[in-house]
């Protein structure tokens, strides 16, 4: 198999509140021989909030982010659903609106850049499944997750809106996503079927509407727990910050205990590949991962 190489759009949380996502991503990339070239010039994607304040500025900055992957001739890999959607939305808008692209390029020209539309944007989950290949991953499994019932939590911004993601997420259906389920099974685990797998975690209103956020994540977690999940897994650090870090306030809001380990997708892959919990940053998870 040819060597996979991507422009790595790290995003903000792996360098701050989810160091375990950074560690586990790098660990499994190394184990699988996937080369990640960090986009050191990249800025925050705006996290789906900045466009509410200044849509054009947000678009210009994301176009700049993409330019640096284009310069390197690489596909961008993201490890956060919201980074994925913000970059993919910028690309979608620029690739489908020549006038807008000209306006943005007029600004980028001031710093010697030009958006061309030559780089694809892909979440690491789909780079693993569609590029590396699910069978190839299965063949590398050393510790099958055979005793684990794992509830996949897809997170909104990797699966909606379908129009923007197109083929970059393997044409995942937002009402019946399968990628994480297939990955869990390839790693030897049991994927838990439950209604909230493709629902929202509430992260984006956590500050201004904590009650809404806690009820939304609480409903999802209780659904997973009631369907006998040992753990949940998510490809999104923002979902993770909600479901893992906020378990106390969610339990309080729901009037029920919602304690359950929450794995990042690369942590789950890493455990099955036989990578040590230390290398996967398991100690940073707030809800205890007792099976690791």
């Amino acid at each position, binding site marked *: 198999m040819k060597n996979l190489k991507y422009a790595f759009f790290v995003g*903000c*949380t792996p*360098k*701050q*509140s*989810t*160091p375990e996502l950074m560690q586990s991503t790098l660990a499994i990339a190394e184990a699988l021989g996937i080369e990640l070239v960090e986009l050191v*010039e*990249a*800025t*925050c994607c*705006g*996290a*789906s*909030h*900045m*466009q*509410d*304040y*200044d*849509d*054009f*500025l947000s678009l210009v*900055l994301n176009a*700049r982010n993409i330019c640096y992957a284009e310069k390197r001739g690489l596909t961008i890999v993201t490890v956060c659903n919201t980074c994925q959607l913000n970059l993919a939305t910028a690309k979608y808008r620029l690739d489908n609106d020549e006038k807008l692209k000209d306006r943005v390029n007029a*600004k*980028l020209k*001031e*710093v010697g*850049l030009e958006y061309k539309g030559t780089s694809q944007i892909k979440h690491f989950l789909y780079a693993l499944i569609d590029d590396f290949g699910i069978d190839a991953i299965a063949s590398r499994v050393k510790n099958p997750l055979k005793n684990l019932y794992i509830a996949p939590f897809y997170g*909104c*911004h990797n699966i*909606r*809106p379908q*129009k923007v993601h197109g083929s970059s997420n393997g044409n995942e259906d*937002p*009402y*019946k996503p399968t990628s994480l389920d297939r990955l869990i099974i390839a790693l030897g685990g049991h994927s838990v079927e439950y*209604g909230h797998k493709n*629902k*929202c975690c*509430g992260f*984006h*209103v956590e*500050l*201004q*509407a904590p*009650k*809404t*956020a806690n*009820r*939304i994540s609480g*409903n999802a977690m209780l659904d997973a727990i009631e369907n006998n999940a040992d753990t949940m897994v998510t490809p999104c650090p923002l979902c993770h910050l909600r479901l893992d*870090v*906020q378990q*106390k*306030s969610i339990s309080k809001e729901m009037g029920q205990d919602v304690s359950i380990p929450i794995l990042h997708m690369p942590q789950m892959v890493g455990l099955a590949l036989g990578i040590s919990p230390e290398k996967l940053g398991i*100690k*940073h998870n*707030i809800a205890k991962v007792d099976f690791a």
Partner: protein
Amino acid sequence: MKNYDIKRVNFKVFRYNKEVDKLPYYEDYSFDVAQDEVVLDILNKIKWEKDGSFSYRRSCRHGICGSCAIKVNNKPVLSCKERVFDLIEIFGYKLVFEPQDMKQAIKDMVVDKERFWHKYSSVKPYLIAEIDAHPKSEYIISGNEADKLDEADYCIQCGNCFYACPSVQVNGDYIGPAALLKAFRFNADVRDNAKRDRLDIVNQEGKGVWDCVKCYECAEACPKDLSPIDKITKLHNQIFEENMATDNVATRHAVGFKDSIKKHGFLDEGELVRYSEGNLGVLKHVPEALHMFKNGKLIMPWQMPKSQKLDEVDKLIKSSSTVKFK
């Protein structure tokens, strides 16, 4: 003659009569379905061939009246538009028909949409303008002016976005995507004079645009592909453009990104929470911050990462910013 593909499909259908039944139940039906049949054809078959008491709303059969919206395997659909074969491709041969909101079901697929209409009417969803009763000429709207509506006038009020919205489900006060889209539709109309009145309504914390969770369920649910969330973004933009953004946690949360990107390239997570909540408000986050610190999930200000070529970022922020926040 062309050969039509026909498939045998099982339908599990929500049944409930509020006046008689204590609890809802599901009835199973099985039909041969032809490749061009839509969900409404199946609803008709149930009523005409199996049970005349089966109830559902329908009228135009052309995707324009918005009355026949239901959920199939939790996917919001317009019955007259959705081909059964397309649903089989996603969900297989067992399809579950449910009303848009089971808690508001009156009879089978028919729901009480009172909440929906109440919120809808709360945003003044009509043109507010001084209209000359005896005009001497037509009021001509240019193509560019019409484009400003961004197709929001195509909304058929089916309610699919409203009943798919998780924020609506947990927060009884939230106006929801359909009404917000409608507020945008009239705010974008050059003939209208009530833009600021509507912005006052949608700017309210707990009710308006700031309670959108950004899940994009509304964008997927809309049978007219109007992406209500993008109209919600435009309402956010109007609030800042009209200088109506009040200084609160929600607005500062949106604004804070720009300052952080200018300074570091990356978002300074700790500083965003402090700036959004204010020096006093941030105190309520201390317990979780301690927990995060203990687990190595907080960095110190001097450890803050920085993007390379920040001079470019600074230049672009100066040249491309379109709004200011007091």
